[in-house]
């Protein structure tokens, strides 16, 4: 029997029912749901992946960068304030005779020494034998270097030994050359025992060591290194002043992370009477530099990820709108069985939000997997910031909610009469 009650019932759609309807709407059309989600999956996946890859890559770049660059401090001799040297001559270099030892006492210094490019007149000949004519000679950069400097330069020896303190102190005519120079001058590294020599405008320097590569200063040029004291005796003091390319310099190799501290101390330690004469150059603060690199890259990729998300949102909005148009009959039916416009809107909003959330979850998983697999393949450490990764699925929810707003409004405004007639 039908009821004959006279109470006025109020239609209601509970949150649980709305959620159940949304889930039903999604799982009953799996193909369409997957395609609708695709945009959000790609957007959120790209968001998580690019941020993760940026962090991972920047971490790796910074690590390599700090090892090679952030362990180098250079000190240049800018010359005395009052130059009392005789006209035509240069003042004594700003570094003390025991500069290497003084630097070594600073905590964090791995090796340090003084060097400068020796100024030679044009047409200076470098030959491997006095018998060779000038036309066969080579042009080589002649560098004065203290024993500590050869250590700080990180020379990789292939034969012989580096310049020694004894050779420096006793002003021996000895030299180290790189393999390219040795080849050009016809000197075989394997035959250093026969004491081959390089003649610089007739002055013989016995080759005591041959190096193949260097970490600092002479990294990409042919060079011949002679002891600092020998260079002072043979060629006089170098010209001070930053910018003339010939001033005496100290190269300091530090331990990782010590460059800043060493840079703050070294001028006063080397020249306590006039520390301002020495100009210290240290690498940028590693943390600041790393932050800048990361910040620039992250900003760029964040924009790319946001564009992906926008595309995802347009995809959801478009598909939801099409779904609303396709489901006008269903909308009419729901209105006929008591649904209010707000219930219709809530249902479509819940569906698009659920799709967005699901897309966000799948996208986050794909993004995380991409970063982890990439890092594993490169043997790097995967870096995923929880502040970006954990809320990523919620980005999908927000995208779904916003994208579903207009279609839901359209659905709510659909006249039940028109909807029921459309069938």
């Amino acid at each position, binding site marked *: *029997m*039908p*009821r*004959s009650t*006279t109470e*006025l*019932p*109020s*239609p*209601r*759609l509970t949150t*649980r*029912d709305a959620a159940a*309807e949304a889930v*039903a709407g999604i799982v*009953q*059309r799996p193909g369409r749901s997957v395609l609708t989600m695709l945009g959000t999956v790609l957007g959120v996946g790209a968001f998580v992946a690019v941020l993760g890859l940026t962090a991972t890559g920047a971490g790796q770049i910074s690590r390599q960068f700090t090892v090679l660059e952030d362990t180098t401090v250079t000190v240049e001799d800018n010359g005395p304030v009052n130059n009392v040297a005789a006209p035509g001559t240069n003042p004594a270099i700003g570094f003390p005779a025991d500069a290497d030892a003084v630097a070594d006492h600073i905590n964090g210094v791995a090796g340090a020494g003084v060097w400068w490019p020796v100024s030679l007149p044009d047409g200076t000949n470098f030959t491997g034998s006095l018998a060779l004519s000038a036309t066969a000679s080579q042009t080589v950069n002649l560098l004065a270097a203290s024993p500590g400097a050869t250590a700080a330069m990180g020379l990789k020896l292939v034969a012989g030994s580096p310049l020694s303190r004894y050779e420096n102190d006793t002003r021996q005519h000895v030299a180290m050359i790189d393999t390219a120079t040795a080849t050009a001058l016809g000197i075989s590294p394997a035959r250093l025992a026969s004491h081959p020599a390089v003649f610089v405008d007739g002055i013989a320097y016995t080759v005591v060591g041959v190096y193949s590569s260097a970490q600092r200063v002479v990294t990409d040029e042919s060079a011949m290194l002679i002891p600092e004291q020998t260079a002072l005796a043979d060629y006089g003091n170098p010209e001070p002043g930053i910018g003339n390319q010939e001033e005496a310099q100290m190269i300091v190799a530090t331990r990782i992370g010590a460059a800043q501290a060493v840079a703050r101390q070294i001028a006063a330690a080397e020249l306590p009477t006039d520390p301002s004469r020495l100009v210290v150059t240290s690498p940028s603060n590693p943390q600041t530099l790393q932050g800048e690199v990361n910040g620039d890259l992250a900003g760029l990729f964040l924009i790319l990820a946001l564009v992906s998300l926008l595309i995802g949102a347009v995809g959801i909005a478009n598909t939801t709108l099409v779904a609303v148009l396709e489901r006008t*009959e*269903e909308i*009419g*039916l*729901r*209105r*006929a*069985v*008591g*649904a*209010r*416009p707000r*219930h219709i809107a809530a249902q479509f909003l819940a569906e698009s939000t659920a799709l967005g959330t699901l897309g966000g979850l799948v996208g986050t998983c794909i993004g995380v997997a991409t970063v982890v697999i990439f890092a594993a393949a490169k043997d790097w450490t995967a870096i995923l910031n929880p502040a970006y990764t954990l809320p990523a699925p919620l980005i999908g929810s927000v995208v779904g909610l916003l994208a579903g707003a207009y279609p839901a409004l359209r659905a709510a405004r659909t006249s*039940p*009469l028109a909807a*029921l007639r459309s*069938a």
Partner: protein
Amino acid sequence: MTAPVIELRGLARTYPGSPPVAALRPADLVIEAGDYVAVTGPSGSGKSTLLHLLGLLDAPTEGRYLLDGLDTSALNDRDRSGLRGRRIGFVFQAFHLLPYRTALENVLLAELYNQTPRGDRSQAAVDALDAVGLGHRLDALPTTLSGGECQRVAIARALVNRPSLLLCDEPTGNLDSTNAAALMELLDQLNAAGFTIVVITHDEKVASHAGRMIAISDGVLSERVEVDHA
């Protein structure tokens, strides 16, 4: 004394336009509980307009419509929706079943918005499907059901809330004669069980099942002579 299920007092519906179309001219009508009424008329006579007004899917431009004694013209959209969901069961010519949902789920849909406790919904839906002879096809999708079965599911959906009024719009329009006859028999049984039924049709055979026949022509309602129950 209980109020009539339907009481129309000068109810009219005019569609705006140039010139305005008077789809339903001021009409008075009383349908008591347990009545079985057929509204007949040719195409464009105003049948659908009357159905939409009676089903609270549309609002009149003048007059009053009392459903179970409640003046619906004074109600807001929320209360009209509530009344529609609880007191009126619709049976459409096109069935309007959701194709991705089973027979049971389609019937459950009618209980979604009317505050029926979740625990009670399933049993009521199963009972309604039993009542239309489809208790054995609860999990069938509409695509696997015949036209007659689909219309029975639609009737179960209309019955599940035990409405005061069953509004049928050309219920046999999409059925063959055998299924149509079986469906009319089902409506006869429901009326015998106490349901108030209004069938809108242009099919005299369908109309002949009703105890009362109302003709509509050019928006004007008129009572036809009483016919003997088939």
